[in-house]
């Protein structure tokens, strides 16, 4: 063994001794010289653009805790300072905050935000700061590896969670919006638009690949829904709000649909989808949701459908009034009746009321819901076979059962046709889901569906 040691020592010595003669430096520079040149190049990319950058940061989130994108303005100075605004909340969009940054090697050439600024709000492990997961926040980064440099943008990937950050050169338009603190307006505008037009179709041709989009401004995610072989599909994608558009974290592709951004044209009161090449197509508001009303109430979903007094007419209105009067006689004020899917084949009807001392209560009754071959919907009184699990009679439904018996009988003694009714209902254009007694065209109930 020792022999080998000596020989290897000998060989090493020979190699070491002559090392200098064999050195070939790439471009004639030492590694650290080349590294520092690279870092200087990356840094100058950020510093040299004097209007600053618009940054979209997409935290990694988790499947249990999805999180969409946040928009920042960042201006880098040569002495390692960065000024920031953010659309995190209404304060961070108004007050500029300065902190330190550096361009370093941390595994790879990285942009690090070295003292606290708005970008750390997403990464902060304290729930008090961001309402995120204790110990993890939004699973977001503040050390970002450089991935790609384009003429007017730089793409980064977070070193810890692989969250995504895209820096785009700020334009005069961006700076004006920042000055006017209007960067937060888009989310409200889109929310308002979506309230007016709840059923938004992104597919360019009606009937082909019907796909709808829903916006969640709280989580900053949007959700696409479409049907495949009759089965509803959904995909949620993070967005960041930038000026007049939502910039998606990833391209959404489904058949002939390809969406990189969604733009709101306020003057035309119109949403557009923008594909990768920048081509725009109008997003179509339609009267009806993607699912038929029959599907809507028979597919396993938790969205509650609400029956309100104002939306009823004819015999349905009489039924509602009778139920209301009956509840009143029992000392309770009926607020609305709601239908929610409970399990794969049952629904809950909630009679929501206010008692004599002003507190709100729910009274739940559970029904087996079936859709027959003719598309007719039936409700059967559900009696749970589980002991202690009799959902048919819980949360005060015992207390109000007698007052809602007419309504209960109406549901259980009829077969219904389910469809949508759109039009001028009670003075406003809206879409309601309708359950019409199959044998009587004038007897129906209408449910809010958006």
């Amino acid at each position, binding site marked *: 063994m*020792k022999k080998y040691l000596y020989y290897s020592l000998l060989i090493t*010595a020979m190699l070491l001794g002559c090392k200098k003669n064999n050195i070939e430096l790439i471009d004639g520079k*030492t590694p650290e010289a080349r590294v520092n040149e690279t870092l200087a190049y990356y840094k100058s990319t950020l510093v040299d653009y004097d209007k600053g950058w618009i940054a979209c940061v997409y935290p990694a989130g988790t499947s249990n805790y999805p999180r969409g994108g946040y928009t920042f303005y960042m201006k880098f100075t040569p002495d390692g300072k960065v000024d920031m605004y953010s659309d995190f909340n209404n304060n961070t969009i108004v007050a500029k905050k300065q902190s330190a940054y550096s361009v370093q090697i941390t595994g790879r050439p990285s942009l690090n935000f070295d*003292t606290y600024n708005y970008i750390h709000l997403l990464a902060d492990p304290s729930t008090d700061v961001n309402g995120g997961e204790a110990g993890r926040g939004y699973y977001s980064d503040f050390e970002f590896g450089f991935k790609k440099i384009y003429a007017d943008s730089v793409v980064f990937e977070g070193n*810890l969670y692989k969250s995504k950050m895209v820096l785009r050169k700020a334009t005069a338009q961006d700076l004006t919006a920042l000055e006017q603190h209007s960067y937060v307006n888009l989310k409200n505008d889109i929310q308002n638009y979506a309230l007016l037009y709840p059923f938004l179709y992104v597919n360019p041709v009606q009937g082909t690949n019907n796909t709808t989009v829903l916006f969640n401004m709280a989580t900053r995610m949007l959700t696409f829904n479409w049907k495949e072989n009759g089965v509803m599909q959904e995909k949620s994608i993070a967005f960041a709000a930038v000026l007049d558009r939502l910039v998606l974290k990833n391209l959404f592709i489904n058949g002939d649909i390809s969406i990189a951004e969604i733009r709101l044209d306020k003057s035309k009161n119109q949403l557009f989808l923008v594909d990768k090449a920048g081509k725009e197509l109008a997003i179509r508001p339609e009267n009806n949701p993607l699912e038929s009303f029959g599907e809507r109430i028979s597919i396993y979903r938790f969205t509650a459908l609400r029956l309100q007094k104002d939306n009823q007419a004819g015999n349905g209105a009489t039924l509602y009034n009778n139920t209301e009067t009956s509840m009143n006689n029992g000392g309770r004020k009926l607020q609305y009746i709601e239908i929610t899917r409970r399990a794969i084949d049952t629904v809950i009807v909630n009679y929501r009321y206010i008692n004599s001392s002003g507190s709100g209560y729910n009274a739940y009754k559970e029904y087996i819901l079936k859709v027959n071959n003719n598309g007719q919907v039936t409700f059967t009184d559900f009696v749970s076979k589980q002991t202690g699990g009799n959902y048919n009679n819980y949360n005060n439904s015992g207390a109000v059962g007698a007052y809602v018996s007419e309504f209960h009988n109406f549901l259980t003694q009829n077969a219904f046709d389910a469809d949508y009714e759109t039009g001028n209902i009670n003075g406003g254009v809206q879409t309601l889901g309708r359950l019409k007694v199959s044998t009587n065209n004038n007897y129906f109930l209408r449910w809010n569906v958006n």
Partner: protein
Amino acid sequence: MKKIEKNRAILYLSLFILLALGCKKTENLEDQVNKMDFSGDYRPPTAIDQWLLENITNPYNIKIKYYWDRSELSLTKSITPIDENKVIPVAQTLLKYFLQPYRSETTDYFIKTYPPKQYIFVGSAEYNSNGSVTVGSADAGKKITLFRLNSFNPDNRDSLLRVLKTIHHEFGHILHQNAIYSPDYKSISAPADYLGDEWVDHTDAEAYQLGFVSAYARNQPNEDFAEMIAILLVYGQRYFDNIVEMAGVAGAAKLRAKETMIVEYYRQLWNIDFRALQSRIQSALPPEPTLASILGYHKKFVEFKFVESDASIKKSTVFAGLLPAIKSELLGYGSRALDYILFNFDEIQGELRVRMYATYPSGSTNNSLRFKIIPVTDKTFKLQLYDPASGSFFNATPTLRNYLSSNTFKIEYQGASTLIGGFYVVGQEQTNFVTGILQ
């Protein structure tokens, strides 16, 4: 054999040296190594850096690192850097309540040698898998990391003490990493009472009974030692004495034994008068707030709990005289046997709820009387019955109702305690009060 091999070894080694040196260039390699620097370009010193240099680094030989450096911290956890606005306030706290008091009680040599050479300031806490958070750590007697500094507010006494406790706790570790305390310290509490990571599942109150100054002290003896130092120095003797009082006979004896050993440790191994150091820090700190300023709606304490059987809650002559009537009236109301009374300020602003918790034949229950708080002076107040139509319970409890609505009270701690306090009738402070555990 051996010898031959040795000779051969010498031969090979000389050959190695000869060959290795053979082609040596005359460059100074050491300089090149020192030049290796992948940290990007130079960051010019800021006003904060200048302040730290003048006030901390030059006089105390301590470097404060506040720029983010992942290599100093866990590589896999979500931890965020400090806000620059917090750097100088934390450093001032370090200076005023740690370095200066120690400097005054020791020597120039001590203060430049033993305090950690480096402090790392971190904005967020470090979250651990057992659900606890790390607020400080000490490494190898040289480096202390302080976490959760972004929520530091030097104007808030609780916040100040929290950070200061971490500073002194971690320095306690540095001291014992340099000079270990007597092994006898570890046997004051039973070995089985040290729990490792499971300390998080136990309360402070349990810890006191076993002779520990906090739940965290039960982690292991070194933590016990550091917690004792930090609580004695930062929270002060009055606070410690309160803990001892709550600890029961066995717990109190252990806490006193540990306290004595800490004082001795400082004297024998470091030649420091611990008591002088303690009073120096205590007199530098902002005064303790009055109970009246921290008991109330949405304050540090929101209620106090009167328990007749708890001997640490003193019973005034007058209130003790009323207790039998209070209890028998409650007993007359559906056979409710009084367990305790909560005096709660937190349900509605400007209102006091007096909630009587009782055991009755089919379980336990509570009923409350509601009072509006009517200030008389800035320190005294009266209680006005509110919503007197609230029913039979109101009518069933005339003694307590009348006692509370017919006196003028002020809020005080019970004696030296910082954990017990309540209502004292103005002008009869010695004989007429009702107090309870602050919570």
